[in-house]
């Protein structure tokens, strides 16, 4: 058992025994060695289920939306991306800060699950793409912190510049090539909505894609409807995407969803000034306000 797992179990037990929170959300070992799905612990004797390893990908802040009407407090473990998701939801007034206890975990970067499945247990596994590009590996907000604070500052200092070379590669194509590329990707989509369900920016009480009577989107699974879905979702999370990469990981058809999201992040940075969602809860959302001096192209 790793040091961090031990610390997690200790603090979860303490919180549950003292009655500080009714539920602790963490990760446990799943069906396979490369899966660590979320765990909801409400009894002190269950804390040994909690685990911290290289596959704790799930963004746990998302589950706070489901638990927002629960009585009492919820404790949740947060990595860097989970804490940004938490800030984001807080900014949207989706959750009550008073009802949540955050336990921060410094994240060294997690391993690629697909590669793990492919290569097997005893091989050298690469880091997940989202973790290679991560700019905030440390929790930005927490009540308790597991791990040492000096390491925290060290990692914070090495914040790397965002890499948009994959977006630029697509931008360099001709319009027809781009269309063919995206049609190929989204023809695979089975519209399971796993990307939406796992996304911490998708917190609408009722999603447009579920409002079948309104008729925004047809039930037919074809190229056109799938792209309607993709573009609509990209626009809906524009300015709110924290780039946790969960959509892409959850996608059973391996659609590069983050390529769309990153394009929007890149454009927002270029057009309206640098903005990292979920970092500063006081700031306004890029599409939620305007500036009279915004670029003018519509004259």
């Amino acid at each position: 058992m790793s040091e961090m797992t031990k610390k997690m179990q200790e603090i979860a037990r303490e919180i549950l025994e003292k009655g500080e929170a009714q539920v602790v959300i963490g990760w446990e070992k799943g069906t396979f060695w490369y899966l660590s799905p979320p765990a909801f612990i409400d009894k002190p004797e269950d804390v040994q289920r909690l685990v911290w390893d290289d596959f704790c990908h799930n963004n746990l802040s998302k589950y706070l939306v489901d638990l927002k009407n629960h009585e009492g407090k919820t404790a949740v473990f947060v990595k860097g991306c989970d804490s940004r998701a938490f800030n984001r939801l807080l900014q949207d007034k989706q959750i009550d800060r008073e009802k949540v206890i955050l336990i921060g975990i410094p994240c060294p970067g997690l391993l690629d699950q697909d590669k793990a499945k492919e290569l097997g247990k005893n091989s050298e596994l690469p880091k997940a793409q989202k973790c290679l590009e991560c700019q905030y590996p440390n929790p930005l907000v927490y009540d308790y912190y597991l791990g040492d604070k000096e390491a925290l500052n060290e990692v914070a200092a090495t914040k790397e510049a965002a890499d948009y070379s994959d977006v630029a590669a697509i931008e360099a194509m001709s319009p027809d090539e781009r269309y063919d590329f995206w049609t190929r990707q989204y023809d695979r989509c089975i519209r399971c909505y796993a990307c939406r369900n796992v996304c911490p920016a998708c917190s609408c009480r009722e999603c447009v894609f579920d409002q079948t009577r309104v008729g925004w989107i047809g039930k037919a699974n074809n190229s056109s409807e799938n792209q309607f879905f993709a573009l609509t979702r990209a626009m809906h999370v524009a300015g709110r995407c924290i780039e946790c990469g969960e959509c892409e990981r959850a996608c059973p058809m391996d659609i590069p969803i983050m390529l769309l999201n990153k394009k929007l992040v890149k454009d927002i940075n270029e057009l309206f000034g640098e903005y990292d969602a979920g970092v500063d809860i006081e700031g306004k959302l890029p599409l939620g306000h305007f500036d009279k001096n915004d670029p003018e192209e519509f004259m």
Partner: protein
Amino acid sequence: MSITEMPQNWEPKILVFACNWCTYAGADLAGLSRLQYPPNIRILRVPCSGRVNPQFVIRAFQRGIDGVLVAGCHPGDCHYVSGNYFTRRRYLLMQRLLQYVGIDPERFQARWISGSEGPKFQQVVTQITEEIRAMGPNRKLRDAQ
């Protein structure tokens, strides 16, 4: 008939989202002034350019529109004070996103046309119609394959 082959006597279909307070009045002025503009446009009056949901645009392409124009009041002139500033942010992004997924930039445009700019309305829709005519029918995002 497949949409990939060029039908005979094909005419571009262009959807214009016109804000009630400026562009619709501008279009009206173009008509009152007897300014000729192509009959290929369909005007859809909206209370404000800010009312135009990005999904409206994608839906138009799905259902066979060849080009979309979103038009509203000049910045600073919005009847609702700030609607068009939000439109500007939204469609600066949307335009780039559509281009990113392979839609030609000519097919989706946005313009500011005020109530007194009848000639500008005529000139903008003529120009867009000619651009789209030269490009041919839109096959991208279409739901009838």
